[in-house]
């Protein structure tokens, strides 16, 4: 029997793919400038690759630790050190659309983790911070347990990530 993927799911896949690109570029940029993210990734081995994918056929994004920062690789290689797989597009959509925090997604078994659990927790903390940067307070308060008070420098970084970091990855 021929399988037909619904239009709704196709749209959600495109949406998730776009958000993955934005998230990837934002993380790449923030990892150059944000001391909290640099502190988190300091313990990741150099060359470490983490991928987020939606089962069974994507979309997918990868990040690689390189020269002390994280580099967005797009879909990236098949063989990675840490693989976080969303069980289906509905699970991924909840998290990437801001309807659910990444931590809550983890708690609700919306994703599986293959690899080092300590690094996966570190990644979740990084994504939490990026969510605080990208979303207005009214949304980020729903997504993370505690919204950290941003310093003036972090407010400036937030603007930088949105205006320069995401388009250029710098």
């Amino acid at each position, binding site marked *: 029997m021929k399988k037909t993927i619904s239009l709704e799911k196709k749209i959600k896949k495109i949406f998730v793919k776009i958000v993955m690109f934005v998230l990837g570029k934002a993380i790449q940029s923030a990892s150059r400038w944000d001391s909290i993210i640099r502190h988190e990734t300091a313990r990741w081995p150099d060359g470490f690759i983490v991928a987020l994918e939606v089962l069974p056929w994507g979309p997918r994004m990868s990040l690689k630790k390189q020269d002390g920062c994280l580099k967005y690789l797009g879909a990236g290689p098949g063989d990675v050190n*840490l693989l976080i797989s969303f069980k289906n597009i509905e699970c991924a959509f909840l998290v990437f659309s801001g309807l659910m925090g990444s931590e809550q997604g983890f708690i609700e078994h919306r994703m599986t983790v293959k690899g080092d659990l300590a690094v996966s927790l570190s990644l979740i903390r990084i994504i939490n911070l990026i969510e605080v940067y990208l979303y207005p307070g009214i949304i980020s308060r729903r997504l993370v347990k505690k919204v950290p008070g941003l310093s003036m420098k972090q407010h400036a970084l937030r603007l930088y990530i949105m205006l320069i970091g995401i388009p250029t990855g710098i």
Partner: protein
Amino acid sequence: MLPSYYEFINPVKIVSGNKAVDNIPYELNQLGVKRPMIVTDQGVVMAGLLKVVENAIADSELAIGAVYDTTPPDSSLEVVKEIAGIYRSNRCDSFIAIGGGSSMDTAKGVNIAITENSDDLSRFIGAEMLKNRLQPFVAIPTTAGTGSEVTSVAVISDTENNVKMPFTSHYLLPNVAILDPRMTLTLPPKLTAATAMDAMTHAIESFINLQKNPMSDAYATAAIKIIRENVVNAVKNGKDADTRLALANAATMAGIAFSNSMVGLVHSLGHATGGICHVPHGIAMSIFLPFGMEYNLEKARGVIGELLLPLGGSELFACTPKTSRAEAAIKIVRKLQTDLYSFCGLPMTLKDAGVPRNKLEQIAQAVMDDGALTFNPEAVNQADALRVLKMAYE
């Protein structure tokens, strides 16, 4: 209120009752195996508990393929490799683990090595890295605390690189858990108290934290009630088989609960304190439990208040205003701590447990790397962890 989504798994067959160990031949026969390897430790041998299992198997068609009875307190990679070699050379086809968390974890580690035909366990570190169903596994706990007989986790130490290797997979769940009061009758009072408080913490944290669900709640509240009703008697009158069986059941129920809804800050503090200062896990749990409950009061006051029913009974619950139930539940846990201190000297503070004050900062730092924090209702940073550690110090 139901969570918007949850998952729950417990495929472990529970065999509970007096002389339940004598069912081992039947259970292994059901699993289609004939040459089990026994993994245990010297404490179990000295207490005569290995003999109980050997006697049960002697009267059957099964043959014990091999016995490894020198499992160290911390499961290590070297031991896993050694046991795997013995398993292979004796053509064993299944495992019987007898003991506490260490024997269980070691046997689980060997099971991975055998099934995956690799002594390099580092390939399987992390969550859901196992692809094959493991060899049949029967778990016989000799402490009522860890819940390892129903958990999908194993931790093995890589002593060469000085790291702990965690493995999580539903394949690590044993096939059968046997709860026989004979296996815990000889547990000394202090160890009885510490392991019971470990089980109590499993149950309470699984009920409070963010992954809680109606199935795990049912196991958790049942476990809390049984522990509360039996722990003091088990400490004072260790030879009471009914009390021992009750605690063994409670520990297993608490294990099922936390295996499905995880633990929180109390365990993060305990893991870090144990790792740095070698405080036994049960003692650390007992010390940190009331502080962990207090820390989460703002975010989880309602569910902590609900714990007053299994902790204090229906009359106290009914007489206590809803707004005061959470504090009343914490008060009962503190009273239990005091009772256990007076009956068997179970430490109530980190100072009593031999933790040097100058280690608190290091412990607080290590807390931040513990996965259980993710499931804690209240956010925790290093300063928060240090504050709780200072409160628990003396």
